[in-house]
């Protein structure tokens, strides 16, 4: 049995934050869960893909976050517990549904997890989704550790059902990807089928109903605020070891992972003042009384939060309204930064800077700074397309076809790594599915051919509407759909093009080629990108075609292929360089650059440990020096 399914309340296990959240969803009796994969939330879906069926939960990888949201929300409207989870930018995709669901509310508990990514570890921006709670009016919770996340999931379902509103569960990368000890709770079984109680006056948001429901929501907000005033997750923490006395009373208001850094500072650095911490777990609606009282009890208050000045602006506004004179300092005063993740050093620097501004110098122990002379080289290690990756073949063939003269809108997936030299393709990237939309606009104004890249999962996510748009409006560009038969970047989740669903059951695989043809694309060609000549020719024909053309380069992800071969116990033929034939022209390293290639002096070699046997190098070498290791050879 999977450790997250064990019915052993009280047992302690070490798990990833995302696994703690998954376990909590099972404990809470979640009946329907839906997602589109996105780091840092991906492991929740990967885990449910393995265990949802056994847990009796319905789980799906939806085509995109909006569909995932709608799927789960409808289940909650019907009256069962539902869960939808996504990375922060995924909530932008789901925002249309999210904003109006706040008006209708739900009847079964509904939790929406947004995994924010301060520092852009794996994202295109570091937006702060706490503002989605403020904008929509839905309540929000923010955990600081895996065990708190587990407990908070239960609380989120309780308050969701109490107020009949969805709850936003906001995490950040250092919450999702932190491992900590959790204590297993009791498992509540998922719901049986329910009878749908019709209530169109509430759930059909025509203007006359929407106006009424908005009033209902506005009436709810003060009640939810009362909940935040007494929530067990909003509490004052007093340091025990140091910072317990002093002539100045310093209050720190914090939430989420920042709380951990605050405690690291307070338990190890004597600030010379008396400190108390208001740790907020329910952060929308914010508890006005609690915050006001906390500020009244302190001489100086600092708001310590990653991202935007969410707590700070609220606190300053409330104090102004209530004529409370306590000084509040944060980002707006320059003591704490908006961008990037925090850590104990940044928090300590912010606190000392703020205390310094009121004339208090903190005596921080000197730490040793090592003076490195940097005399030895430090070659960078950027992420690259894997050895054997079919995208490398695609880019190589494409560049032969365009001869470097083209504009390349690209999209989100492994293939974005094509921007690295020597491929160096990728000129515009905004968000999921944007390449085809960008290509339409570019094709109307630039003086070179336009070639857009899009992965198979991205195509299903948000790639189809811009393709419809391009065909209908007669945009002249090539859309290269790079079909590696998986959602590779986020950890190989299935998508609608594959014959398997979220529960692991057989499913109808939707043909990308047929979809394109059905949309009216007049030029559609599918090729194997490990065959350079065939792929180059397809690109040349597509570029010559007037109008929207599609080239599908179809070959499975090398990592997945390797895993399957290893499972089947099959060995692969490795490739090598014939030193007698090699003329050291560097075409292989300078134009193809497989990570398995290396040089000793001027001599080229292929590392057999890294070679995935894709066979493209054999087609790349102009002198036939690269090829499979002969049987019994080497």
């Amino acid at each position, binding site marked *: 049995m999977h450790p997250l399914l064990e019915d052993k309340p009280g047992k*302690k*296990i*070490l798990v*990833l934050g995302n696994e703690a959240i998954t376990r909590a969803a099972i404990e809470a009796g979640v009946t329907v869960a839906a997602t589109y994969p996105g*780091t*840092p939330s991906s492991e929740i879906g990967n885990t449910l893909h393995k265990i949802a069926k056994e847990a009796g939960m319905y789980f799906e990888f939806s085509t995109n976050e909006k569909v995932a949201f709608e799927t789960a929300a409808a289940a909650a409207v019907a009256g069962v517990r539902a869960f939808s989870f996504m990375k922060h930018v995924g909530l932008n995709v789901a925002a249309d549904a999210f904003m109006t669901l706040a008006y209708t509310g739900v009847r079964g508990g509904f939790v929406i997890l947004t995994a924010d990514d301060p520092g852009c*570890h*794996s994202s295109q921006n570091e937006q702060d989704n706490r503002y989605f709670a403020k904008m929509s009016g839905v309540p929000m919770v923010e955990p*600081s*550790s895996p065990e708190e996340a587990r407990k908070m999931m239960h609380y989120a379902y309780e308050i969701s059902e109490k107020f009949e509103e969805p709850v936003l569960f906001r995490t950040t*990368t*250092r919450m999702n*990807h*932190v*491992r*900590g*000890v959790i204590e297993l709770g009791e498992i509540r079984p998922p719901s049986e089928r329910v009878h749908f109680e019709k209530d169109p006056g509430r759930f059909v948001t025509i203007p006359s109903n929407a106006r009424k429901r908005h009033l209902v929501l506005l009436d709810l907000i003060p009640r939810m605020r009362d909940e935040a005033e007494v929530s067990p997750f909003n509490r004052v923490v007093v340091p025990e070891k140091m910072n317990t006395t002093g002539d100045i009373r310093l209050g720190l208001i914090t939430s989420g*992972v920042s709380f*951990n*850094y605050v*405690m*690291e500072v307070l*338990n*190890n*650095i004597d600030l010379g003042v008396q400190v108390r911490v208001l740790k907020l777990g329910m952060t929308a609606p914010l508890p006005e009384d609690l915050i006001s009282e906390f500020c009244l009890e302190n001489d100086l208050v600092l708001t310590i939060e990653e991202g935007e000045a969410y707590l700070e602006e609220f606190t300053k506004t409330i104090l102004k309204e209530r004529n409370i004179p306590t000084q509040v300092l944060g980002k707006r005063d320059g003591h704490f930064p908006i961008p990037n993740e925090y*850590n*104990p*050093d940044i928090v*300590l620097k912010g606190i000392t800077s703020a205390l310094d501004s009121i004339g208090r110098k903190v005596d921080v*122990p*000197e*730490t*040793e700074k*090592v003076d*490195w002379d940097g005399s*030895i*080289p*430090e*070659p*960078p*290690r*950027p*992420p*690259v*397309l*894997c050895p054997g990756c079919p995208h490398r073949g695609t880019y190589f063939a494409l560049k032969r076809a365009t001869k470097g003269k083209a504009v390349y809108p690209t999209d989100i997936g*492994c293939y974005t*790594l094509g921007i*690295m*030299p020597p491929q160096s393709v990728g000129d515009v990237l905004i968000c999921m599915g944007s390449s085809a939309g960008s290509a339409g606009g570019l094709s109307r104004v630039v003086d070179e051919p336009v070639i857009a890249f899009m992965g198979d999962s991205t195509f299903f996510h948000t790639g189809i509407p811009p393709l419809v748009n391009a065909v209908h409006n007669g945009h002249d560009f090539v859309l290269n759909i790079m079909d590696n038969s998986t959602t590779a*970047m986020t950890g190989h989740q299935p998508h609608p093009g594959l014959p398997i669903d979220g529960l692991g059951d057989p499913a109808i695989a939707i043909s990308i080629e047929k979809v394109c043809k059905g949309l009216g694309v007049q030029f559609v060609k599918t090729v194997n990108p490990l065959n350079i000549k065939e792929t180059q020719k397809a690109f040349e024909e597509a570029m010559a075609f007037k109008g929207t053309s599609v080239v599908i380069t179809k070959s499975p992800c090398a*990592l997945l292929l390797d895993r399957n071969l290893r499972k089947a116990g099959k060995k692969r033929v490795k490739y090598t360089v014939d030193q007698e034939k090699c003329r050291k022209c560097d075409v292989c*390293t300078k134009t193809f*650059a497989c*990570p*398995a*290639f*290396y*040089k000793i002096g001027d001599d080229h070699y292929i*590392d057999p440990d890294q070679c995935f046997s894709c066979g493209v190098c054999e087609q790349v070498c102009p002198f036939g020096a690269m090829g499979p290791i002969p049987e019994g050879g080497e």
Partner: protein
Amino acid sequence: MVHLNQNACTIQIVGVGGQGALTVSKIIGAAAIEKDQQIVVSEIHGMAQRGGVVQTTIRLGDTISPLPFSSDITVLVGFEPLEAYRAKQEITSETVVLVSTDPIRPISVSSMGQTYPEIDSILEEIGKHTDCLFSLSSKEKALEAGDERVKNVVMLGALVGTETLPFTYDEMKRAVEASVPPKALEANLKAFDLGYNEVHDKK
């Protein structure tokens, strides 16, 4: 005074995706749970599978913070020598440094003409700044243990051999037994011992 938090042990593992740092942190986690020792581990996943840099921070003892003060690394474990060197800013004179000497060439070296530094000069440079540096070829030891894939457990054995962790040899060995699949147990235990002996005997 070097470390600001004197009551926690912070292990920073640096390496390249696929080197098995995750398994090491899981085994240390198993030891921590068994001993009721407070633990928090932080991982940066990102694009690890695509040959990028991987960083795992394991904190044991009196802390709830997944990230330490930058001066608080107790042990820096380099699963790859260049990555150990790249993490040099995190070394203080009291940081114990443990380096596997088997290089993995980054793309900037294999295809972009840059030079991979000499392993000896990496070790020499790091050795100038810490009083306690251990190096070994985890690949060599793993092959000796019978399976190249147990390189990570060689490094775990070596880490325990530095005696900087709040676990004894026996405690960690039991955690290895509880964490690895039965058919791989023999190679893993041998790897653990080879790593342990290599470092412990040099102390």
